[in-house]
């Protein structure tokens, strides 16, 4: 069932948790609300569940307006953060809770089937505190799914699990969603989790949706510095547009003479024109490094492709991570350029102090409005 939020907002006292929000979550999709804590994602979820009353706007489920409906009358169920399992009831009674409240008398068979689905059959008569975190998580999931809700809401469902278990449960949740085919709305602060599972991700910041789209779309073509920094890492350079040539923009980085190019549709600035200021971005893994002295010879290791964007710099730091190599490069245009190289043909001469040329494809470049905080969404900002 499609969920439609129209102008939904929530104000607590003088704090606006959610600014008027329009959102359509299509039927059968796995939809993630991604953002740091306090960004309004959980409040949005709770308004869909009915646990929070919107200050303004309306929520529709299919064609029905459910804005004023109390939670127990909504065909929507939630997997709570820390699961909120009833400590006084055993596993099977926890799972049967929703059915019993709706007056279903013979719940035994359904409960057994559901516990089978989440592989908890043998633990049916344990109390929640006798279960591990992963098992509790499955009970919470079973307790919600047994009601065959039209929408399942998940509030940081994997937050309390350790890394390995979290990876496993990510895949399992995705499998279950495909199996039951109902709409999942998933709130998380973990970008990897959102990208692994969701078809569509809405990145929220300060009570607003910054950008909405498929995970690869968000990653490859972020439209704001927050998205660029919160999803993965981005190198952002201040630059000025020098020319608009058809479908291509030409720019000059502040502090360097080289010309940078990028496709016009990868520029988030509306109506770009010559003289305008932008922030040019590129992901660390899209950049290649070539030693400055090899830059002119076309047959040397790491030859520079024709038409690449080029910058010069000097390696400050190099870290060997096994699967990749991470460099920090000082460049006149950007003091700390991150570069990740796949560990395929490792150039052992790339040590700190080496003068290098950084080069990448114009199609991997993006441009953002320069009027934003370049550090929005970074870890440093969060601290």
């Amino acid at each position: 069932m499609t969920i439609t939020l129209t102008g939904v907002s929530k104000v607590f006292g003088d704090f606006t948790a959610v600014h008027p929000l329009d959102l359509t979550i299509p039927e059968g999709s796995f939809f993630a609300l991604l953002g740091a804590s306090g960004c309004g994602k959980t409040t949005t979820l709770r308004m869909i569940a009915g646990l929070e009353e919107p200050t303004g706007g309306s929520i529709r489920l299919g064609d029905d307006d459910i804005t004023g409906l109390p939670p127990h009358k909504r065909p929507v169920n939630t997997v709570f953060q820390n699961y909120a399992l009833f400590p006084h009831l055993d596993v099977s009674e926890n799972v049967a809770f929703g059915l019993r409240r709706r007056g279903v008398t013979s719940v035994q068979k359904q409960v057994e089937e559901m516990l089978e689905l989440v592989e908890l059959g043998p633990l049916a008569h344990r109390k929640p505190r006798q279960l591990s975190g992963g098992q509790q998580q499955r009970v919470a999931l079973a307790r919600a799914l047994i009601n065959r809700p039209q929408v399942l809401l998940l509030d940081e469902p994997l937050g309390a699990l350790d890394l390995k278990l979290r990876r496993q449960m990510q895949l399992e949740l995705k499998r279950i969603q495909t199996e039951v085919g109902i709409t999942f709305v998933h709130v998380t602060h973990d970008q990897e989790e959102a990208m692994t599972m969701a078809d569509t991700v809405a990145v929220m910041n300060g009570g607003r949706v910054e950008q909405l789209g498929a995970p690869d779309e968000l990653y490859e073509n972020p439209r704001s510095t927050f998205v660029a920094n919160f999803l993965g890492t981005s190198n952002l350079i201040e630059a000025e547009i020098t020319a608009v040539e058809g479908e291509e923009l030409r720019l000059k980085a502040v502090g360097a003479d080289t010309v940078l190019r990028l496709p016009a549709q990868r520029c988030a600035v509306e109506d770009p024109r010559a003289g305008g200021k932008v922030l040019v971005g590129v992901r660390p893994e899209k950049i290649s490094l070539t030693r400055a002295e090899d830059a002119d010879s076309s047959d040397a290791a790491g030859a520079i492709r024709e038409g690449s964007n080029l910058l010069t710099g000097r390696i400050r730091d190099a870290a060997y991570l096994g699967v990749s190599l991470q460099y920090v490069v000082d460049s006149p245009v950007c003091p700390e350029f991150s570069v990740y190289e796949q560990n395929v043909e490792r150039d052992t001469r790339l040590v700190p102090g080496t003068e290098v040329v950084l080069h990448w494809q114009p199609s991997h470049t993006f441009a953002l409005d320069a009027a934003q905080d370049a550090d929005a969404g970074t870890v440093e900002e969060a601290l």
Partner: protein
Amino acid sequence: MTASTVPAAAGAAPPSQQPSPETGSSGDGQGPGPRRRLTPYWLLLPAGLWLAVFFVAPFFYQASTSVQSGSLEEGFRVTWDFTNYSDALATYGPHFLRSFLYAAVATLLCLLIGYPLAYMIAFRAGRWRSLLLVMVIAPFFTSFLIRTLAWKTILSDSGPVVGVLESLHILDFTSQLGLTGDDRLLATPLAVVCGLTYNFLPFMILPLYSSLERIDLSLHEAARDLYAKPTTTFRKVTFPLSLPGVVAGTLLTFIPASGDYINAQLLGSPNTQMIGNAIQKQFLNVLDYPTAAAMSFILMAIILIAVTVYMRKAGTEELV
């Protein structure tokens, strides 16, 4: 062995059960409707009304009674006669002093006796912990009057305690201090204080235990790791962290002890009467209600002031 380790849990907050800031303000969905806004008042009404009528209102009656004069035969009338107060203080000044002195000493003794037990149950009892706690509460199950009477047996003139103390010449020493007399323990201030200490000891132990139990053991390890001797660990870490329990325990002991008259009656003599005895006698035997009311009012005022000052002082000390 001088390596400083970081105990795994020291300082690390336990897995938070607190709702995140995003969910925190929601409470339990108290909507703005007028019915919901009245709910807490309805819930509070029976208890609040009961306490207002049978706890607060009596103080006003008592206040008015305390400024009445007259006699039982002619009836009492409000005459704004404050001599009830001055008379009470003049006649029963020693009772007041004795009450607070005995209660203070008993509270101190409770702290000294109760702390090791609370500490032992919290940190050294292992699997015996719940059994020991039951044993601390167990005396409550026997009527405390019966238990106080048992002290009459224990401290009796021909009993073993007097015998031992006599042969060790301790009784001679204490009678020189004026705590005992005539080679006996019963009917002495010592017996009264002993009974008070005994009666209110669990009220000291339980709050002490609950604040000690909350202390993370890794804090002890951290202190030891940072070169603190066991005694220093206790002085600088354990005791300061148990202060809330000390404050609660001393209040729960001192307040009832200062108003008690059972121990003074059963274990003491006319020379060890406390203010409770005086109030009880005036109210129930002499039927001089104005004097009883005045004394009760003075006792209440002194305790309220003392408690307020003490809590404020304890509160600021905690901040330092």
